[in-house]
């Protein structure tokens, strides 16, 4: 997989060089640095290290490099651009650095009827998150993303193409823009495994493209149980079954008011194919997204995601068969250099299979309150409190409480460039 990614980047660079001779090029470099002092009331082992703790940090106090993200773009005058995004994290004493996205993009000019084609090719996030639209996929108004988008950052990323057709209202004298995005992709077959095995989580951590995620302990992984063949780490950006998946999304955007979008993701996994302990999971979900400007300058952001995931034994019996739902509502208001954001979330995983030693059931809710002060143009100082209350019988495999309340208080200095 790493080889595929390098080949792709190499091809992209060559394409870029060809165009460089013909057109003028501009290079832009942007990113974010996020330094945090955090107090976490959680479990000893966090979910990024094979635990059940729902934050990316272990119980206790810590000073962390929560994110050092950079994106470089080479832009040609003909609308073509090449992008690479890298991220680094130093959490729990563990330093990780790598690429998270890399793609080539083309943006055409609108025609006389106001229609515009845009396309992307490479490794990228399907258009889902309404929160992570700052540089290097950082969350704009909160330090930690919602559990919905933390999952997108952990397991959903594709190697594929994406075509967007936009109808601009400005040219048609309509007060709205319409757009339709269609994507075909590979290399996202194990998506769904971490959602099943450690459940919904809340952090700003994105899985690096070459990274594997350690599984938590549960009985079914032991010898003699159904998941003994599963590797000890999940490699979410892997192609296992050689089948193409897809994502479609439609959006209507009202200028200065808001936008409504809906999409459907299906990795089209053949759920009984296994390769080196990595299964193809059949993971499908629908998402509905809303952002709206309310009176008093309050911005409402809300997303709802519902889907299922299925993984079977080579004999085609269900091993993991889960339904899941997640929704959040966030309100944010800025007064001069001050911004306050609050977010409530509800999430669940419903376990439909009979596999012994692998109970994926989960129900929970979370609340986040963030205050951010903009010290200068690039510097943002934030205080954020997060509370997660969850019911997860699977924590009994590690003798941890089934009902658990976790809290985190973070102080951050974020610098955008």
């Amino acid at each position, binding site marked *: 997989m790493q080889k595929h990614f390098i080949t792709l980047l190499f091809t992209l660079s060559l394409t870029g060089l060809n165009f460089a001779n013909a057109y*003028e090029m*501009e290079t832009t470099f*942007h990113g*974010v640095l996020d330094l945090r002092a955090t107090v976490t009331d959680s479990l000893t082992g966090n979910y990024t290290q094979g635990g059940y703790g729902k934050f990316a940090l272990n119980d206790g106090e810590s000073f962390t490099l929560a994110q050092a993200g950079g*994106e470089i773009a080479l*832009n040609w*005058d003909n*609308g073509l651009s090449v992008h690479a995004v890298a991220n680094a994290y130093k959490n729990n004493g563990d330093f990780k650095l790598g690429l998270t996205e890399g793609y080539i*993009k083309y*943006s055409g*000019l*609108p*025609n*006389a009827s*106001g229609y*515009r084609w845009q396309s992307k090719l490479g490794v990228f*996030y399907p*258009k889902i*998150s309404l929160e*992570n*639209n*700052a*540089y*290097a*996929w950082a969350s*704009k108004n909160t330090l930690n993303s919602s559990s919905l988008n933390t999952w997108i950052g952990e397991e959903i990323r594709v190697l594929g193409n994406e075509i967007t057709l936009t109808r*601009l209202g*400005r*040219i048609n004298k309509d007060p709205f*823009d319409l757009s339709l995005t269609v994507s075909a992709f590979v290399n996202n077959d194990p998506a769904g495994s971490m959602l099943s095995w450690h459940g919904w989580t809340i952090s700003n951590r994105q899985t690096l493209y070459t990274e594997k995620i350690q599984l938590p302990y549960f009985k079914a992984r032991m010898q003699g149980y159904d998941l003994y063949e599963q590797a000890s780490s999940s490699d979410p950006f892997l192609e296992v079954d050689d089948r193409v998946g897809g994502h479609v999304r439609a959006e209507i955007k009202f*200028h*200065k*008011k*808001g936008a409504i979008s809906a999409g459907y993701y299906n990795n089209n996994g053949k759920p009984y194919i296994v390769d080196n302990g990595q299964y193809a999971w059949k993971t499908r979900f629908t998402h509905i997204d809303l952002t709206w*400007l309310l009176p008093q300058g309050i911005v409402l952001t809300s997303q709802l995601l519902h889907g299922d995931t299925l993984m079977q034994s080579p004999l085609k019996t269900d091993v993991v068969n889960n339904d899941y739902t997640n929704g959040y509502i966030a309100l944010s208001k*800025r007064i001069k250099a001050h911004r306050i954001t609050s977010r409530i979330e509800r999430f669940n995983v419903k376990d439909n299979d009979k596999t012994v030693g692998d109970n994926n059931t989960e129900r929970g809710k979370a609340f986040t309150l963030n205050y951010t002060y903009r010290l200068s*143009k*690039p510097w943002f100082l934030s205080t954020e409190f997060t509370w997660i209350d969850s019911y997860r019988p699977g924590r009994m495999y590690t003798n941890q409480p089934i009902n658990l309340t976790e809290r985190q208080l973070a102080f951050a200095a974020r610098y*955008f460039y």
Partner: protein
Amino acid sequence: MFNKLPIQIKFLFISFFIIFAPSFVANATNTLTVNVVDTNQKPLENMVVYVEPIGHKVTLKNTNTLEIGQANKAFIPYISVMQLGSKVKFNNQDNITHHIYSPVGDNKFSVKIRSGQEVIKNDFNEAGEVSMGCNIHDWMSGYMLIVDTPFFAKSDKNGNTEMVIDKSGQYKVVVWHPQMTDINNRITKTINLNSAMAVTMQLSKPMDEIPSQQNEDDFDFLSDY
């Protein structure tokens, strides 16, 4: 003092005025004041007013270079007007690149302007309206009206424009704005101009709302997700 001059000088002086009087009259400098008001008689600012001769020609050219800035991710000004054949200077005052374009009609164009740079265009070959956007910032919107007459102006906050027209005769006064809901976004009136004149142009329909060029998101570090 005039009485003390020799008779020959007096004669020449008077004759001069008599002989050239018609030309002085025909080329009298007429100031035309146009006041633009809405359906409730309220003055309208930043409306384009232009005046075209009817049945005669005007040789005068107004070839001032038009400046259209891109500042705070907006076209400044929102509305511009120039005579056909003039140059336009696009001036990017932001610290990011803009990709200015117009997708419709004979004056279709597209140009990328980097931060702090200027681009001069002199190839607008047809009169008419040029609706401009930015392909990077979709909410940016600007208009340029290219007219085939040297007499044009934009109304001030009292709805007034003043044009100096050096030839008497019949003229068509036109008021244009992209958000006018009258046919072709215009109203017109024919006048006979032979002295200083004031005309009031009243819209027959209310204007549409002028679209805001401000981005809905005030966060400065958005990527293309």
